[in-house]
């Protein structure tokens, strides 16, 4: 199946895929979206509450309070992952738990836990960014590209 030509499906394969498709239960997209909206919103509300606490009781400003807030959310997410029920919440919440910083913390914690049996260096160290790695690589890269575009526009006298 290496060459592209072979990738083309035969009529029998196409016919079968249609049959398979017709029997496939669909993902409940609307329901999933609603669940994601509420859980995601709930996590953000929690984040906002934590932030308010940092601003009002610990002398942070609106700007500096973001970092300790993320840290607390990351800690909670890592704790829930380690206790073994983050994945169950995520199956229900979908993107609601995946998109906020909690999802990112979960990818790293779960991979670290999973590969603990292979040792701390090659197991945990070598694998903890297995799922989060691509996000970091392409996140940094796109930030870089956007920054270049911004600089060019500024250089040309825009903005």
């Amino acid at each position, binding site marked *: 199946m290496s060459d592209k030509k072979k990738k083309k499906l035969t009529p029998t394969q196409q016919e*079968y895929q249609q049959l*398979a498709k017709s*029997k496939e*239960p669909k*993902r409940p997209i609307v329901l999933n979206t609603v669940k994601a909206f509420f859980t995601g919103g709930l996590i953000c509300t929690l984040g906002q509450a934590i932030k308010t606490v940092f601003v009002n009781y610990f002398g942070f400003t609106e700007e500096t309070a973001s970092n300790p807030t993320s840290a607390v959310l990351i800690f909670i997410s890592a704790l829930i992952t380690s206790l073994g029920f983050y*994945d169950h919440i995520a*199956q229900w919440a979908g993107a609601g738990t995946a998109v906020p910083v909690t999802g990112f913390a979960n990818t790293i914690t*779960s991979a670290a836990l999973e*590969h603990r049996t292979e040792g701390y260096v090659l197991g945990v160290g070598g694998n903890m960014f297995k799922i989060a790695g691509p996000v970091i690589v392409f996140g940094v890269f796109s930030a870089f590209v956007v920054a270049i575009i911004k600089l060019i526009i500024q250089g040309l006298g825009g903005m």
Partner: protein
Amino acid sequence: MLQGRQTWVFESKPVIAGSAAVGGPFESKCALADDFDMFSEDLWLGQDSFEKAERKLLEHACEIAIKKAGVKKEDVEFFFSGDLINQIISSSFTARTLGIPYLGIFGACSSSVEGLALASILVDGNFANNALAATSSHNAACEKQYRYPTEYGAQKPPTAQWTVTGAGAALVAREGEGPRVVCATIGRVVDMGLSDPFNMGAAMAPAAVDTISAHMRDLNIDLSDYDIIATGDLGRVGHEIAKELLKKHGISLPEEKFTDCGKIIYKDEQPVFSGGSGCGCAAVTTYGHFINRMKKGELKKILVVATGALLSPMSYQQKEFIPCIAHAVSLEM
């Protein structure tokens, strides 16, 4: 003896003198729980990794099967085993513990029947008196191998399946009490161009149907003799497709006779999406549930068609389709 193109008929009808089904904590609450020989209350089985835990399951299954057959370990000449972990380490390491001459096999989730057919061939051909066939799968070890870390919060679609934590073993002997292995049909690899690893049932259904029709063609029979025809782990989704495909091939099977191990193993309220899967699925259902029912006299003759998806995480990432296989074995009491 070869009959037709791909079917072996075992003239001496080797006996499954002992069989065992072992499961994990989730399986202890499954629909077929009464038919298991042993459960572990702990997903780790007291080990420090899931891989070692799977090995323990397989060891327990083998030991129980040997014991139930009433033979000594030294009397078992050959051991066939396969599993889903890279380089089939669960099987090989279990063979190290057992110390029985060993042939490792890989047919993904079809390994149970592949092993049983090969063990029967040895016994039928007088190459062995007692041959052991076993297979295992472990939910967490398999998730790690094929998908994401177990605690990773990814939402699975309704077509996904739940890997059975379990091991099954059967001791095939020349003489003894138990169901007899009549014949086996070895499947060919079928690729219908599906590539979604979260919808294995749909990928494997054509392979099961291909093997079932080959079985009928080679033996020149219709399937009315069988009390049950059970596919391995197509799940609810794949089972519906297989039914439709059989209809298209002009094979009519009564609703109550055609079933799927992955569909019946768990209770409806257990969150397993489309159903069970993994090497252990067909193995524990056959070696536990079906064999018990045969012994009770509820079933006279059955056909087990274990299905396997022959993909690897790498082949999937390289955008390859999922080639699938199914092997059938016919048992009679």
